[in-house]
């Protein structure tokens, strides 16, 4: 039997990596370690996706059910009852173009928030840069997002409202939505390890968030409120998505978008900072 453990050491032994663990010092090479563990990140994401689609018999259909129902309700409530101005866009398409980033954000955010506690057994038994865990949670959200994207494509074809070249900038906005979710998710997941109460905060934030984010209405139709809405970092993302997909915005609302960018940057930097600060304790208190 060819035994791997019998493998003779290479003739010129490569220099062995030396690691020093010292009290009170955050491990050096953290970011390099994170890069080295990128395969683990991929595997954890792949595991979550596999498990998700194996455990549910409807599989992909679930990713569609929720946005479809929200779409019908919002179109009815905001479009038909409240008669919000749509600016010439078919109302379902307007809602769907807002739901797309919202759905991506909310599933990435809730996935990242629950990720540490959900992987408690790994964290207490194996070392790896803990950032891998919330980051891998983003991947599942991305898969669900692609499913909803297909739904959007069908609607766009149906209404003959196809996006212009602006759609090429969509990946940047997807990234922005994911970074927003990561920044907020890092805060939540680190706080949840210490205070389990925060588990109840996430659904609350999401159920309130869908209304203060312009999912079901257009910000340019409510100029009085635009400044206030811009304080929600997702407003920039949603506006950006509409700009990419609908091509009906007269001008790109830069002030709002830059506010969003700044807020996302702050959220992300502080999120990473807090996460890294708490990381040392995770294994002891999880």
């Amino acid at each position: 039997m060819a035994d791997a453990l019998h493998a003779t050491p290479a003739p010129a032994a490569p220099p062995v990596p030396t690691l020093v663990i010292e009290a009170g010092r955050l491990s050096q090479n953290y970011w390099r370690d994170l890069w080295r563990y990128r395969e683990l990140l991929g595997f954890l994401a792949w595991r979550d996706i596999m498990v998700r689609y194996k455990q549910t018999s409807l599989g992909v259909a679930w990713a569609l059910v929720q946005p479809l129902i929200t779409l019908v309700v919002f179109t009815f409530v905001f479009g038909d009852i409240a008669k919000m101005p749509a600016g010439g866009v078919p109302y379902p398409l307007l809602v769907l173009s807002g739901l797309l980033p919202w759905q991506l954000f909310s599933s990435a955010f809730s996935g990242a928030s629950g990720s540490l506690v959900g992987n408690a057994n790994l964290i207490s038994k194996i070392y790896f840069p803990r950032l891998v865990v919330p980051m891998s949670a983003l991947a599942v959200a991305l898969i669900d997002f692609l499913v909803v994207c297909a739904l959007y494509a069908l609607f766009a074809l149906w209404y003959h409202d196809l996006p212009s070249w602006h759609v090429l900038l969509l990946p940047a906005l997807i990234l922005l939505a994911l970074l927003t979710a990561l920044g907020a998710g890092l805060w939540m997941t680190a706080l949840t390890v210490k205070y389990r109460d925060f588990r109840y905060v996430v659904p609350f934030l999401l159920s309130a968030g869908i209304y203060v984010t312009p999912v079901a209405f257009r910000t340019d139709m409510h100029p009085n409120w635009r400044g206030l809405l811009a304080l929600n970092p997702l407003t920039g993302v949603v506006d950006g998505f509409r700009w990419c997909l609908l091509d009906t915005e007269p001008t790109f609302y830069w002030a709002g978008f830059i506010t969003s960018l700044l807020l996302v940057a702050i959220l992300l930097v502080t999120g990473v900072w807090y996460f890294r600060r708490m990381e040392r304790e995770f294994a002891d208190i999880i």
Partner: protein
Amino acid sequence: MDAAPVITVENLSKRYTLTHEARHDNLRDTLTQGVRGLWSRFRHWRAAARAQDEEFWALRDVAFTVPRGDVLGIIGRNGAGKSTLLKVLSRITEPTTGRITLRGRVASLLEVGTGFHPELSGRENIFLNGAILGMSRAEIRRKFDEIVAFAEIEQFIDTPVKRYSSGMYVRLAFAVAAHLEPEILIIDEVLAVGDAQFQKKCLGKMGEVAHDSGRTVLFVSHNTAALQAICRTGLWLNKGRVMQTGPINECLSAYLASGAEESVFVPVNRNKPHITSVTVDRTALATGRLRISVGFQSPFPLSRPVVGITLFSRYGQPLAGSNGRMLGERWAPPAAAAGVITAEIFPLPLHSDTYRASIFLGDAGQDYDVRHDTAEFDFISGNFYPECPPLQAIGSLDLPWQWTFTPAPPAPEPSS
């Protein structure tokens, strides 16, 4: 070969804070504590120090070095700090003070099957678990067939592991870990699971890892036979401190000799003669002498008090038994209503293993109190056999075998 130790641990301590009030896992506690803390600090600093927090040192001033290619067995009672030490060494948790230098890639196996997902198939779990343990995808792919063969699960490789028997599950998990190729391998009590046959295979694999490829292994186990078989040196921890380091047999003997363990019984019926205590003398045991003392009490004097002891192997086979009654006239203690009867065997002709004793108390005519499996002890034999077959195969008795060799008589000179 460079002489620098692969692992250097200096002045290592790890403190946990035990909070006596409810742990702060809800926000309200922290908020109220915070407000209360401010308030009390406001009023003449009193009670500002949180008196209800108690410090607990899981490790205290631990220092040791491990040379390249060594297999270090870490021993100690539950709560001695063994697992904490492994967690600190594997970077799962941070030390409170001290410094560790590790020269080489570290892989740790603190649990069998960490990260296994029941819904995924054996194949998927091999990749997942390998990645979690630090293998690259290419490395796993290269060793895939070998892992499957080692685990003996070829025909179930695409079955979700939730349908595996516990034995198959453990075999697969260990197989993945056994194919890691780090310079330093850290293993916690993982052999406590699995059937004896597979345990033996794993021990063999670990021996190979250490002896043939010059890797350094840190190994925690309560299985003294396994420790003896694969470890070269030992580290005995007690209450977070290092008690002894050195050759594994010396450490094991010292550890096992520490503190005679006594089991005390609450009598079932005080109106009947009963056993009050059973003591196995650990100090004597470490020198190869089994000494079991049985205390008894009786509401009336026993004319000829008798104690019987039967030793059982770990697998429950009776090995040897004796009692005063079977000795006839040779056992003639005075009549007594209380006392201690001690039995000794020296040298104890058993292999290193865990043994149990069942004990009864009686008099010339009848048994009064029978206790099954009352005492359990780990025995380290002074005779060490480098290649000892499993004790289920050869039995637990280590009898004084004499081996001789007689050469064949020289062939008669061909007379022609």
